[in-house]
């Protein structure tokens, strides 16, 4: 797989907010069907890096390519590019005034201009994949956090993206609901979806990730297989972070 064109390629990403340099020259390469896991303490810039991949944040410096296209270049139609990059948020961000089905079909109809009947069919398929087709007519407030997040995943995958970005997808969930969301992510991974995940679910990272990046203070401190990073980390910072998050 290594010689295939990367789905996401970020080179030399810097991001400055005011006086604060959040990202200090990051490289990220995500190959097709890879699950890349980004871990690190809060404030390390991992969410910002993720958000640079679909330009929810514009990198101050650096280049982002998605399936070979330089999306940071001038004049790129970002709305066209974003159709191919799904994103799942910490707080789900479902549209509260729409049913689960309408949440999923909105972009299919308005961005991809797919007719309602066909969009409904695609949405039902996506909801079935996350195990929630029976909740298609429910509104977000009628769903549990775990169910809302799975609808949000359905909303992302219904667009048939090249990659899905997960920004701490289980951080806002009650512990007993985390498993259902991770289960869906595991199924996606097995079906070959390319994924970039920012999360604190270390056990999930260990079993499912192809590659783990450890970030701290805006740089990638360590990068490798889960085995390498979790069992055999080369840097003191990585070890002290891992001992802090796994001790309880």
């Amino acid at each position: 797989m290594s010689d295939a064109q990367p789905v996401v390629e970020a080179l030399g990403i810097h991001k400055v907010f005011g006086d604060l340099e959040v990202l200090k020259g990051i490289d990220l390469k995500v190959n097709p069907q890879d699950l890349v896991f980004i871990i690190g303490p809060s404030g390390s810039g991992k969410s910002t890096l993720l958000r640079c991949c679909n330009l929810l944040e514009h990198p101050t410096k650096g280049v982002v390519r998605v399936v070979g296209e330089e999306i940071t270049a001038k004049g790129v139609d970002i709305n066209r590019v974003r159709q191919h990059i799904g994103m799942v948020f910490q707080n789900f961000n479902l549209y509260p005034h729409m049913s689960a089905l309408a949440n999923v079909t909105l972009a299919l109809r308005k961005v991809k201009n797919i007719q309602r009947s066909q969009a409904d069919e695609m949405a039902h398929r996506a909801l079935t994949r996350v195990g929630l087709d029976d909740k298609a007519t429910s509104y977000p407030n009628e769903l549990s956090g775990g169910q809302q997040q799975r609808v949000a995943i359905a909303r992302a995958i219904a667009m048939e993206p090249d990659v899905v970005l997960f920004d701490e997808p289980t951080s806002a969930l009650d512990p007993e609901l985390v498993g259902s969301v991770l289960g869906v992510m595991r199924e996606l991974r097995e079906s070959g979806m390319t994924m970039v995940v920012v999360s604190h679910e270390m056990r999930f990272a260990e079993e499912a990730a192809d590659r783990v990046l450890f970030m701290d203070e805006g740089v990638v401190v360590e990068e490798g297989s889960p085995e390498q990073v979790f069992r055999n980390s080369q840097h003191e910072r990585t070890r002290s972070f891992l001992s802090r998050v796994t001790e309880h």
Partner: protein
Amino acid sequence: MDAFLDQFFNQAVMAKYLPDVIGGLWITLALAGLVIVTGILLGLALACLRSFQIGWVNWLIVIFIDLFRALPPLVLLIVGYFGLPYAGLQLSGFAISWLCLSCVLGAFAEEIFWAGITSVHKGQWEAARSTGLGFSQTLFCVVIPQAIRMTIPPLTNRTIAITKNTALASVVAVQEMLTVAQTSLAYAANTSPLTLAAIGYLIVFLPLVILSRWIETRFAWKR
């Protein structure tokens, strides 16, 4: 007590002037309806326009809404009715009242809609934009529907408060309910027509108050 009843509830006077007051009620109703529709649409349009954050456009919008929120509607009506003809623009009292009150309601409604738009969580914008929806699509499909629901309680209150100002149109010769009642009062030398007008206002505005209550519960949703 008899004198009071004779002054305010004289049935003979009421019966005589009832048709006139009802005629005025229709004018009030028409003016109120027009003001509500154009005022709220104007406010919504301005709030949407403001979302695009175009520097000089926002300036004009802010000047417009501050002006119409600061000036008393009565002053606007008088200036419009007696002043505009000197500028070569002769409009009927009804048109002036409609225009002025629409602008006042539009100004307040804009501020309320704008507050609603800005209070929609940033994550809603990000979620919609991340699926490839453009700025306008996100505004109209995702943000505005949520903003409208949030703004219904303050908006209905403000709408009722401003729409009641249709009574001010009596100063610019509009034959609305209060004008008619005052004229009748003068002819009859009896205040019973005013009682009729008061009842008339209740008939117009009480349903509006009840409707707003119904809309509030209808559109409420748990977060």
